[in-house]
């Protein structure tokens, strides 16, 4: 009798269980961004703090840059804010912001109370600029190389762990090979 055949269902179960187990540790909210490796989408928006000025994608070129999409209604943004402040103080990389579907008054108040880590902040109340960046949940943080190519995108609050693991090595690689 070919007794090994009776093991087949158990084997099939184990394979399926393996997939499910792996699935437990995947974040279904993370949608792979089609922007990675592509030029950063162009936007030209009002500067949040200086409405007479504009902030455009081109302003971020020349150095590695980080663009952080945030809003005052977003809990994760509040959570990551102290880290952004720390990052700005370290001067490791210029930090830019995009204020997403928010109100100017509330956003300015937030920056005044919690500190302002951004070199420039785009004011995007209608979500027109962020739409081109495929933003669908804030906070989202993009890493750009000096030529303005999107190198990495992080979804969710930024913190030291993610920074060490995903951002710092990529920034080091850019600085290792200047353009």
């Amino acid at each position, binding site marked *: 009798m070919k007794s090994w055949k009776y093991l087949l269902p158990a084997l099939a179960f184990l394979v399926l269980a393996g997939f499910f187990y792996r699935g437990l540790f995947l974040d*279904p*909210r993370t*949608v*792979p*961004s*089609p*922007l990675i490796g592509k030029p950063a989408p162009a936007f030209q928006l009002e500067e949040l703090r200086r409405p007479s000025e504009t902030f455009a994608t081109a302003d971020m070129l020349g150095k590695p840059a980080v663009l952080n999409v945030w809003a005052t209604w977003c809990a994760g943004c509040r959570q990551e804010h102290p880290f952004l402040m720390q990052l700005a103080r370290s001067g490791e990389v210029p930090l830019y912001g995009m204020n997403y*579907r928010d109100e100017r008054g509330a956003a300015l108040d937030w920056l005044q109370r919690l500190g302002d880590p951004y070199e420039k902040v785009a004011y995007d109340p209608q*979500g027109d600029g962020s*739409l*081109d*960046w*495929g933003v*669908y*949940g804030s906070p989202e943080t993009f890493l750009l190389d000096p030529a303005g190519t999107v190198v990495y995108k992080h979804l969710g609050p930024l913190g030291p762990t993610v920074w060490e693991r995903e951002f710092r090595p990529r920034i080091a690689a850019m600085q290792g090979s200047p353009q």
Partner: protein
Amino acid sequence: MRQLLALLLAGLMAFGVGIGAAQADSILAMNPEDTFETPEQLQRYEKMINDLRCVVCQNQSVAESNVDLARDLRRITRDMILAGRTDAEIKQFMTDRYGDFVLYNPPLKPTTYLLWGAPVILLLLGAIVMVSVVGRRAGESGDDAEGMGENT
């Protein structure tokens, strides 16, 4: 007392009318049917927004969801249709921003071969198992028939 009651009633009615108006308002905002020029455009619109996944609320389509992003994507879809863009162009616009994930009908390409091929593979596997089992039974049928005969 009666006056108070009447006042209360009037207030309630006004409130009701207010709610009704607000609802009518949001329904108008949700269904931009009036803005299409031909029924064919409306049909394309409905099909498109039902084929697009809302990336924020992942188990709803853009048609079903009421989050800001879905509303914007509906507006963009409508505007693009009115501007005479093709369905392929609209889908391209969406995938440029959100990737294939935004499509409920993913395109056939190397990374999705397994996805599209899985039903055929499973069907073939089933067929192989079935043929082998039936074949074996057929081969044993002589013995089986005798055994059964003895039992009954």
